[in-house]
Protein backbone atom coordinates (compact mmCIF):
# COMPACT_ATOMS: atom_id res chain seq x y z
CA UNK A 1 0.00 0.00 0.00
CA UNK A 2 1.30 3.42 -0.93
CA UNK A 3 1.75 6.01 1.77
CA UNK A 4 -0.35 8.46 -0.24
CA UNK A 5 -2.52 7.70 -3.22
CA UNK A 6 -4.44 10.16 -5.32
CA UNK A 7 -7.19 8.77 -7.49
CA UNK A 8 -8.86 10.82 -10.24
CA UNK A 9 -8.30 14.10 -8.46
CA UNK A 10 -10.05 17.14 -9.90
CA UNK A 11 -10.07 20.65 -8.53
CA UNK A 12 -12.01 23.56 -9.88
CA UNK A 13 -12.97 26.97 -8.62
CA UNK A 14 -16.14 28.74 -9.55
CA UNK A 15 -15.63 32.44 -9.90
CA UNK A 16 -18.35 34.71 -11.30
CA UNK A 17 -20.25 31.60 -12.43
CA UNK A 18 -17.21 30.63 -14.49
CA UNK A 19 -15.49 27.33 -13.76
CA UNK A 20 -11.73 27.41 -13.58
CA UNK A 21 -10.13 23.97 -13.72
CA UNK A 22 -6.94 23.86 -11.70
CA UNK A 23 -6.17 20.15 -11.43
CA UNK A 24 -7.52 17.56 -13.83
CA UNK A 25 -7.50 13.77 -13.51
CA UNK A 26 -4.61 13.55 -11.13
CA UNK A 27 -3.46 10.01 -10.36
CA UNK A 28 -0.36 9.78 -8.19
CA UNK A 29 1.27 7.47 -5.69
CA UNK A 30 3.77 8.50 -3.07
CA UNK A 31 5.84 5.98 -1.14
CA UNK A 32 7.60 6.18 2.20
CA UNK A 33 11.36 6.67 2.11
CA UNK A 34 11.27 8.75 -1.04
CA UNK A 35 11.61 12.41 -1.92
CA UNK A 36 9.25 13.72 -4.57
CA UNK A 37 9.71 16.97 -6.41
CA UNK A 38 6.64 18.72 -7.80
CA UNK A 39 7.37 21.28 -10.50
CA UNK A 40 5.26 23.33 -12.86
CA UNK A 41 4.46 26.83 -13.98
CA UNK A 42 3.14 29.39 -11.61
CA UNK A 43 -0.58 28.84 -11.24
CA UNK A 44 -0.32 25.18 -12.23
CA UNK A 45 -1.86 24.16 -8.90
CA UNK A 46 1.20 22.95 -7.00
CA UNK A 47 0.27 24.67 -3.74
CA UNK A 48 -3.32 23.58 -4.20
CA UNK A 49 -2.26 19.95 -4.59
CA UNK A 50 0.01 20.11 -1.56
CA UNK A 51 -2.79 21.61 0.52
CA UNK A 52 -5.16 18.88 -0.62
CA UNK A 53 -2.67 16.16 0.33
CA UNK A 54 -2.22 17.96 3.65
CA UNK A 55 -6.01 17.91 4.22
CA UNK A 56 -6.15 21.71 4.38
CA UNK A 57 -8.13 21.76 1.13
CA UNK A 58 -10.07 19.15 -0.82
CA UNK A 59 -10.69 17.99 -4.36
CA UNK A 60 -13.90 18.88 -6.14
CA UNK A 61 -13.98 15.19 -7.03
CA UNK A 62 -11.56 12.35 -6.48
CA UNK A 63 -9.90 10.57 -3.62
CA UNK A 64 -6.89 11.08 -1.42
CA UNK A 65 -5.84 7.98 0.47
CA UNK A 66 -3.33 8.27 3.28
CA UNK A 67 -2.31 4.85 4.60
CA UNK A 68 -5.30 3.55 2.69
CA UNK A 69 -7.77 5.85 4.36
CA UNK A 70 -9.88 8.26 2.32
CA UNK A 71 -9.19 11.58 4.03
CA UNK A 72 -11.89 13.50 2.20
CA UNK A 73 -14.49 11.39 3.99
CA UNK A 74 -13.11 12.35 7.39
CA UNK A 75 -14.77 14.82 9.70
CA UNK A 76 -12.97 18.08 10.29
CA UNK A 77 -11.71 17.16 13.77
CA UNK A 78 -10.45 13.80 12.50
CA UNK A 79 -8.65 15.51 9.67
CA UNK A 80 -7.04 17.83 12.24
CA UNK A 81 -5.93 14.78 14.21
CA UNK A 82 -4.51 13.18 11.07
CA UNK A 83 -2.51 16.34 10.34
CA UNK A 84 -1.17 16.36 13.86
CA UNK A 85 -0.10 12.72 13.75
CA UNK A 86 1.07 12.24 10.20
CA UNK A 87 1.89 15.47 8.41
CA UNK A 88 4.55 18.14 8.81
CA UNK A 89 4.42 21.34 6.74
CA UNK A 90 7.22 23.60 5.58
CA UNK A 91 6.50 26.88 3.75
CA UNK A 92 8.39 29.32 1.60
CA UNK A 93 7.90 32.20 4.04
CA UNK A 94 8.85 29.96 6.99
CA UNK A 95 5.61 30.92 8.74
CA UNK A 96 6.98 31.03 12.27
CA UNK A 97 5.16 32.77 15.08
CA UNK A 98 7.16 36.03 15.34
CA UNK A 99 6.33 36.42 19.02
CA UNK A 100 7.61 33.02 20.05
CA UNK A 101 11.20 31.98 20.53
CA UNK A 102 12.79 29.21 18.46
CA UNK A 103 12.08 26.80 21.30
CA UNK A 104 8.46 27.86 21.71
CA UNK A 105 7.82 27.67 17.97
CA UNK A 106 9.10 24.12 17.78
CA UNK A 107 7.24 23.09 20.91
CA UNK A 108 3.88 24.41 19.73
CA UNK A 109 2.61 21.43 17.68
CA UNK A 110 3.48 19.04 20.52
CA UNK A 111 1.04 20.47 23.04
CA UNK A 112 -1.91 18.72 21.46
CA UNK A 113 -0.11 15.39 21.24
CA UNK A 114 -0.93 13.14 24.20
CA UNK A 115 2.25 11.23 23.39
CA UNK A 116 4.29 13.91 25.13
CA UNK A 117 4.32 15.05 28.70
CA UNK A 118 6.17 18.16 29.77
CA UNK A 119 9.53 16.44 30.18
CA UNK A 120 9.48 14.47 26.96
CA UNK A 121 8.25 17.53 25.08
CA UNK A 122 11.17 19.57 26.36
CA UNK A 123 13.60 16.78 25.56
CA UNK A 124 12.28 16.40 22.05
CA UNK A 125 12.43 20.16 21.50
CA UNK A 126 16.09 20.28 22.54
CA UNK A 127 16.87 17.32 20.34
CA UNK A 128 15.17 18.87 17.33
CA UNK A 129 16.99 22.16 17.86
CA UNK A 130 20.22 20.23 18.01
CA UNK A 131 19.38 18.36 14.79
CA UNK A 132 19.01 21.63 12.90
CA UNK A 133 22.12 23.07 14.58
CA UNK A 134 20.45 25.95 16.34
CA UNK A 135 21.13 25.16 20.01
CA UNK A 136 22.85 28.52 20.70
CA UNK A 137 19.84 30.25 19.11
CA UNK A 138 17.09 28.49 21.00
CA UNK A 139 15.99 31.57 22.96
CA UNK A 140 16.04 33.83 19.92
CA UNK A 141 13.04 35.24 18.09
CA UNK A 142 12.56 34.59 14.35
CA UNK A 143 13.42 38.17 13.37
CA UNK A 144 16.84 37.69 14.97
CA UNK A 145 17.60 34.76 12.65
CA UNK A 146 18.66 34.58 9.01
CA UNK A 147 16.28 33.14 6.42
CA UNK A 148 18.14 29.84 6.36
CA UNK A 149 18.03 29.57 10.12
CA UNK A 150 14.33 30.36 10.16
CA UNK A 151 13.67 27.63 7.62
CA UNK A 152 15.62 25.19 9.78
CA UNK A 153 13.39 26.12 12.70
CA UNK A 154 10.36 25.49 10.48
CA UNK A 155 11.72 22.07 9.52
CA UNK A 156 12.38 21.19 13.15
CA UNK A 157 8.82 22.27 13.94
CA UNK A 158 7.42 20.18 11.07
CA UNK A 159 9.18 17.17 12.60
CA UNK A 160 7.86 17.83 16.09
CA UNK A 161 5.18 15.14 16.17
CA UNK A 162 7.30 12.66 14.20
CA UNK A 163 5.13 12.72 11.06
CA UNK A 164 5.53 10.16 8.26
CA UNK A 165 4.85 12.78 5.64
CA UNK A 166 6.66 16.08 5.06
CA UNK A 167 5.05 18.58 2.70
CA UNK A 168 7.28 21.48 1.68
CA UNK A 169 6.00 24.32 -0.50
CA UNK A 170 8.98 26.06 -2.11
CA UNK A 171 11.04 25.69 1.06
CA UNK A 172 14.06 27.31 -0.55
CA UNK A 173 12.25 30.06 -2.42
CA UNK A 174 13.55 32.74 -0.08
CA UNK A 175 17.03 31.30 0.41
CA UNK A 176 20.44 31.64 -1.23
CA UNK A 177 22.29 28.78 -2.95
CA UNK A 178 24.20 27.80 0.18
CA UNK A 179 21.11 27.55 2.34
CA UNK A 180 19.10 25.92 -0.43
CA UNK A 181 21.64 23.11 -0.55
CA UNK A 182 21.49 22.69 3.17
CA UNK A 183 17.70 22.52 3.28
CA UNK A 184 17.50 20.09 0.35
CA UNK A 185 20.08 17.87 2.03
CA UNK A 186 18.07 17.96 5.21
CA UNK A 187 14.88 16.99 3.39
CA UNK A 188 16.72 14.27 1.53
CA UNK A 189 18.07 12.77 4.71
CA UNK A 190 14.54 12.76 6.12
CA UNK A 191 13.36 10.74 3.13
CA UNK A 192 16.32 8.39 3.53
CA UNK A 193 15.21 8.00 7.13
CA UNK A 194 11.89 6.59 5.94
CA UNK A 195 9.63 9.58 5.58
CA UNK A 196 7.58 10.43 2.55
CA UNK A 197 8.80 13.89 1.53
CA UNK A 198 7.02 15.97 -1.11
CA UNK A 199 8.69 19.19 -2.19
CA UNK A 200 7.21 21.80 -4.49
CA UNK A 201 10.04 23.75 -6.03
CA UNK A 202 10.90 26.15 -8.79
CA UNK A 203 14.56 25.37 -8.39
CA UNK A 204 16.25 23.19 -10.96
CA UNK A 205 18.32 21.77 -8.12
CA UNK A 206 15.34 19.70 -6.98
CA UNK A 207 16.10 17.17 -9.72
CA UNK A 208 19.43 16.36 -8.04
CA UNK A 209 17.76 15.41 -4.79
CA UNK A 210 14.37 14.01 -5.78
CA UNK A 211 13.78 10.32 -6.37
CA UNK A 212 10.98 11.32 -8.71
CA UNK A 213 9.96 14.64 -10.23
CA UNK A 214 6.31 15.21 -11.04
CA UNK A 215 5.39 17.92 -13.48
CA UNK A 216 2.01 19.52 -13.17
Amino acid at each position, binding site marked *: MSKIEIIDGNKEYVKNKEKIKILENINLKFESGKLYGIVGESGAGKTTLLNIIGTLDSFTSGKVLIDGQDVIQLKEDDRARLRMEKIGFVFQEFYLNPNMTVEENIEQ*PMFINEKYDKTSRRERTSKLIETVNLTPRRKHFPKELSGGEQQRVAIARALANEPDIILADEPTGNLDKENEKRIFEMLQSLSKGGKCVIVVSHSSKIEEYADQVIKL
Partner: protein
Amino acid sequence: MMKNQIKSVLRNKSNIIYIFTFVILFAILNVALTIRPLVDQYFDNIVEEYSNTLQTQLNKISSYENIKIDELAKTIQISKELTDEQKTEIENIKHVERLEIQKIDLEGEEVHIQYLYLDDWKNFEYVNNRLDALGISGSPAVLDEQILESYSTIRNIANTIQYLLIIVSLLVIIVCCRNIVKNEQKNIKLLQIFGYKKSKIKQILFVEQITMLIIGLIFGIVLYELLYFLLVHEMLNISVENNAVMMVAINAIIILLPAFLSIHIKTLKS
Protein backbone atom coordinates in the same frame (compact mmCIF):
# COMPACT_ATOMS: atom_id res chain seq x y z
CA MET B 1 0.45 25.54 25.87
CA MET B 2 -1.65 28.42 27.17
CA LYS B 3 1.42 29.89 28.82
CA ASN B 4 3.34 30.05 25.54
CA GLN B 5 0.32 31.36 23.66
CA ILE B 6 -0.33 34.08 26.19
CA LYS B 7 3.33 35.05 26.30
CA SER B 8 3.33 35.43 22.53
CA VAL B 9 0.16 37.53 22.60
CA LEU B 10 1.63 39.82 25.25
CA ARG B 11 4.86 40.17 23.28
CA ASN B 12 2.86 41.45 20.34
CA LYS B 13 3.34 45.23 20.37
CA SER B 14 -0.03 46.05 18.84
CA ASN B 15 -1.75 44.15 21.62
CA ILE B 16 -0.09 46.41 24.19
CA ILE B 17 -2.04 49.29 22.65
CA TYR B 18 -5.25 47.30 23.07
CA ILE B 19 -4.46 46.53 26.69
CA PHE B 20 -3.79 50.23 27.26
CA THR B 21 -7.18 50.99 25.71
CA PHE B 22 -8.78 48.44 28.04
CA VAL B 23 -7.18 50.12 31.05
CA ILE B 24 -8.70 53.49 30.08
CA LEU B 25 -12.07 51.96 29.27
CA PHE B 26 -12.33 50.02 32.51
CA ALA B 27 -11.41 53.13 34.46
CA ILE B 28 -14.11 55.13 32.63
CA LEU B 29 -16.59 52.29 33.06
CA ASN B 30 -16.10 52.14 36.80
CA VAL B 31 -16.23 55.91 37.13
CA ALA B 32 -19.54 55.69 35.26
CA LEU B 33 -20.78 53.10 37.72
CA THR B 34 -19.97 55.47 40.58
CA ILE B 35 -21.95 58.42 39.19
CA ARG B 36 -25.36 57.25 40.43
CA PRO B 37 -24.29 56.41 44.01
CA LEU B 38 -22.40 59.70 44.02
CA VAL B 39 -25.52 61.68 43.11
CA ASP B 40 -27.56 59.75 45.69
CA GLN B 41 -25.00 60.37 48.38
CA TYR B 42 -24.75 64.04 47.50
CA PHE B 43 -28.51 64.49 47.85
CA ASP B 44 -28.66 62.40 51.02
CA ASN B 45 -26.24 64.90 52.49
CA ILE B 46 -28.44 67.79 51.38
CA VAL B 47 -31.56 66.18 52.85
CA GLU B 48 -29.78 65.45 56.08
CA GLU B 49 -28.57 69.00 56.36
CA TYR B 50 -32.06 70.25 55.56
CA SER B 51 -33.62 68.04 58.26
CA ASN B 52 -31.02 69.06 60.80
CA THR B 53 -31.69 72.73 60.26
CA LEU B 54 -35.42 72.14 60.53
CA GLN B 55 -34.97 70.06 63.68
CA THR B 56 -32.91 72.76 65.38
CA GLN B 57 -35.56 75.30 64.59
CA LEU B 58 -38.39 73.10 65.83
CA ASN B 59 -36.59 72.17 69.02
CA LYS B 60 -36.74 75.82 69.98
CA ILE B 61 -40.51 75.59 70.03
CA SER B 62 -41.33 73.42 73.03
CA SER B 63 -44.63 71.98 71.73
CA TYR B 64 -42.85 70.33 68.77
CA GLU B 65 -40.22 68.64 70.90
CA ASN B 66 -41.29 65.09 70.07
CA ILE B 67 -41.32 65.45 66.35
CA LYS B 68 -38.46 63.62 64.59
CA ILE B 69 -37.77 65.47 61.38
CA ASP B 70 -35.36 62.92 59.94
CA GLU B 71 -38.21 60.42 59.96
CA LEU B 72 -40.66 62.96 58.62
CA ALA B 73 -38.26 63.75 55.80
CA LYS B 74 -39.06 60.28 54.47
CA THR B 75 -42.77 60.78 54.83
CA ILE B 76 -45.56 61.43 52.40
CA GLN B 77 -48.60 63.22 53.65
CA ILE B 78 -52.05 62.34 52.36
CA SER B 79 -54.89 64.56 53.38
CA LYS B 80 -57.73 62.79 51.62
CA GLU B 81 -59.75 60.37 53.73
CA LEU B 82 -58.78 56.76 52.79
CA THR B 83 -61.04 53.73 52.62
CA ASP B 84 -59.89 50.51 54.31
CA GLU B 85 -59.37 48.98 50.90
CA GLN B 86 -57.11 51.83 49.83
CA LYS B 87 -55.18 51.56 53.06
CA THR B 88 -54.23 47.95 52.43
CA GLU B 89 -53.37 48.76 48.84
CA ILE B 90 -51.12 51.58 49.94
CA GLU B 91 -49.42 49.47 52.56
CA ASN B 92 -48.57 46.94 49.88
CA ILE B 93 -46.69 49.45 47.73
CA LYS B 94 -42.99 48.74 47.58
CA HIS B 95 -40.80 50.99 49.80
CA VAL B 96 -43.76 51.88 52.08
CA GLU B 97 -42.86 50.98 55.65
CA ARG B 98 -46.06 51.93 57.42
CA LEU B 99 -49.19 54.07 57.28
CA GLU B 100 -49.96 56.19 60.31
CA ILE B 101 -53.07 58.20 60.95
CA GLN B 102 -52.96 61.23 63.17
CA LYS B 103 -56.06 62.89 64.48
CA ILE B 104 -55.67 66.60 64.92
CA ASP B 105 -58.21 68.70 66.70
CA LEU B 106 -58.51 71.84 64.60
CA GLU B 107 -60.68 74.36 66.45
CA GLY B 108 -63.15 71.73 67.59
CA GLU B 109 -63.15 69.91 64.25
CA GLU B 110 -61.32 66.57 64.01
CA VAL B 111 -59.02 66.33 60.99
CA HIS B 112 -57.32 63.13 59.90
CA ILE B 113 -53.83 63.36 58.43
CA GLN B 114 -52.35 60.21 57.01
CA TYR B 115 -48.59 59.78 57.03
CA LEU B 116 -46.89 57.29 54.77
CA TYR B 117 -43.44 56.37 56.04
CA LEU B 118 -40.99 55.28 53.31
CA ASP B 119 -37.72 53.42 53.61
CA ASP B 120 -35.89 56.22 51.81
CA TRP B 121 -36.82 59.72 50.71
CA LYS B 122 -35.37 58.88 47.27
CA ASN B 123 -38.36 56.62 46.66
CA PHE B 124 -40.84 59.48 46.84
CA GLU B 125 -41.17 59.63 43.12
CA TYR B 126 -41.83 55.92 42.82
CA VAL B 127 -44.44 55.83 45.60
CA ASN B 128 -46.07 59.03 44.41
CA ASN B 129 -46.50 57.55 40.96
CA ARG B 130 -48.13 54.48 42.48
CA LEU B 131 -50.41 56.67 44.55
CA ASP B 132 -51.36 58.65 41.47
CA ALA B 133 -52.34 55.42 39.80
CA LEU B 134 -54.66 54.74 42.73
CA GLY B 135 -56.11 58.20 42.36
CA ILE B 136 -54.63 59.44 45.60
CA SER B 137 -52.40 62.47 45.78
CA GLY B 138 -49.70 62.96 48.34
CA SER B 139 -46.99 65.45 49.03
CA PRO B 140 -43.80 65.35 51.06
CA ALA B 141 -44.58 65.99 54.72
CA VAL B 142 -41.66 68.29 55.36
CA LEU B 143 -39.16 67.87 52.58
CA ASP B 144 -38.72 70.75 50.17
CA GLU B 145 -40.23 69.78 46.80
CA GLN B 146 -37.43 71.63 45.03
CA ILE B 147 -34.91 69.18 46.43
CA LEU B 148 -36.99 66.34 45.04
CA GLU B 149 -37.26 67.99 41.66
CA SER B 150 -33.58 68.72 41.26
CA TYR B 151 -32.76 65.23 42.53
CA SER B 152 -35.04 63.75 39.91
CA THR B 153 -33.47 65.80 37.11
CA ILE B 154 -29.88 65.18 38.10
CA ARG B 155 -30.50 61.50 38.71
CA ASN B 156 -31.93 61.13 35.22
CA ILE B 157 -28.93 62.88 33.71
CA ALA B 158 -26.60 60.68 35.77
CA ASN B 159 -28.43 57.57 34.63
CA THR B 160 -28.19 58.58 31.00
CA ILE B 161 -24.47 59.32 31.27
CA GLN B 162 -23.92 56.06 33.09
CA TYR B 163 -25.70 53.94 30.48
CA LEU B 164 -24.03 55.78 27.63
CA LEU B 165 -20.58 55.21 29.10
CA ILE B 166 -21.30 51.54 29.77
CA ILE B 167 -22.55 51.01 26.22
CA VAL B 168 -19.70 52.94 24.64
CA SER B 169 -17.01 51.09 26.59
CA LEU B 170 -18.69 47.77 25.85
CA LEU B 171 -18.83 48.53 22.12
CA VAL B 172 -15.24 49.74 21.97
CA ILE B 173 -14.06 46.64 23.83
CA ILE B 174 -16.02 44.40 21.46
CA VAL B 175 -14.39 46.10 18.46
CA CYS B 176 -10.94 45.81 20.07
CA CYS B 177 -11.41 42.10 20.76
CA ARG B 178 -12.51 41.47 17.19
CA ASN B 179 -9.44 43.27 15.91
CA ILE B 180 -7.20 41.29 18.23
CA VAL B 181 -8.60 38.06 16.84
CA LYS B 182 -8.29 39.38 13.28
CA ASN B 183 -4.63 40.15 13.93
CA GLU B 184 -4.25 36.58 15.13
CA GLN B 185 -5.49 35.11 11.84
CA LYS B 186 -2.04 33.98 10.76
CA ASN B 187 -1.44 32.18 14.02
CA ILE B 188 -4.92 30.65 13.94
CA LYS B 189 -4.15 29.29 10.48
CA LEU B 190 -0.87 27.96 11.80
CA LEU B 191 -2.59 26.15 14.66
CA GLN B 192 -5.04 24.62 12.17
CA ILE B 193 -2.10 23.40 10.11
CA PHE B 194 -0.59 21.78 13.21
CA GLY B 195 -3.86 19.95 13.69
CA TYR B 196 -5.37 21.92 16.55
CA LYS B 197 -9.10 21.32 16.64
CA LYS B 198 -11.38 24.30 16.13
CA SER B 199 -12.74 24.01 19.66
CA LYS B 200 -9.19 24.08 21.02
CA ILE B 201 -8.33 27.15 18.97
CA LYS B 202 -11.44 28.92 20.22
CA GLN B 203 -10.50 28.01 23.75
CA ILE B 204 -7.01 29.45 23.26
CA LEU B 205 -8.40 32.66 21.74
CA PHE B 206 -10.89 32.99 24.57
CA VAL B 207 -8.22 32.64 27.24
CA GLU B 208 -6.02 35.13 25.38
CA GLN B 209 -8.80 37.72 25.27
CA ILE B 210 -9.74 37.15 28.88
CA THR B 211 -6.11 37.54 29.96
CA MET B 212 -5.74 40.82 28.13
CA LEU B 213 -9.06 42.10 29.45
CA ILE B 214 -8.25 41.14 33.02
CA ILE B 215 -4.89 42.90 32.80
CA GLY B 216 -6.82 45.91 31.48
CA LEU B 217 -9.32 45.59 34.31
CA ILE B 218 -6.69 45.41 37.05
CA PHE B 219 -4.85 48.51 35.88
CA GLY B 220 -8.17 50.16 35.04
CA ILE B 221 -9.37 49.65 38.61
CA VAL B 222 -6.11 51.09 39.94
CA LEU B 223 -6.59 54.13 37.69
CA TYR B 224 -10.22 54.39 38.77
CA GLU B 225 -9.35 54.25 42.46
CA LEU B 226 -6.81 56.99 41.88
CA LEU B 227 -9.32 59.18 40.02
CA TYR B 228 -11.94 58.42 42.64
CA PHE B 229 -9.64 59.31 45.49
CA LEU B 230 -8.46 62.54 43.88
CA LEU B 231 -11.78 63.78 42.50
CA VAL B 232 -14.49 62.45 44.78
CA HIS B 233 -12.76 62.00 48.07
CA GLU B 234 -10.44 64.97 48.03
CA MET B 235 -12.38 67.50 45.97
CA LEU B 236 -16.02 66.74 46.74
CA ASN B 237 -15.37 65.24 50.15
CA ILE B 238 -18.08 62.62 49.72
CA SER B 239 -17.65 58.97 50.52
CA VAL B 240 -19.74 56.74 48.34
CA GLU B 241 -20.97 53.27 49.09
CA ASN B 242 -20.72 51.42 45.83
CA ASN B 243 -22.86 48.48 45.01
CA ALA B 244 -19.99 46.00 44.87
CA VAL B 245 -22.06 43.12 43.50
CA MET B 246 -23.36 45.21 40.63
CA MET B 247 -19.89 46.53 39.83
CA VAL B 248 -18.38 43.05 39.78
CA ALA B 249 -21.25 41.78 37.66
CA ILE B 250 -20.98 44.55 35.08
CA ASN B 251 -17.20 44.27 34.86
CA ALA B 252 -17.54 40.52 34.43
CA ILE B 253 -20.09 40.92 31.64
CA ILE B 254 -17.87 43.44 29.91
CA ILE B 255 -15.00 40.97 30.03
CA LEU B 256 -16.90 37.85 29.03
CA LEU B 257 -19.23 39.19 26.35
CA PRO B 258 -16.60 40.71 24.01
CA ALA B 259 -14.30 37.72 24.48
CA PHE B 260 -17.15 35.37 23.69
CA LEU B 261 -18.28 37.36 20.65
CA SER B 262 -14.77 37.73 19.27
CA ILE B 263 -14.10 34.01 19.02
CA HIS B 264 -17.27 33.48 17.04
CA ILE B 265 -16.37 35.68 14.11
CA LYS B 266 -16.69 34.08 10.73
CA THR B 267 -13.01 34.34 9.85
CA LEU B 268 -12.52 31.29 12.07
CA LYS B 269 -14.26 29.20 9.44
CA SER B 270 -11.19 28.26 7.46
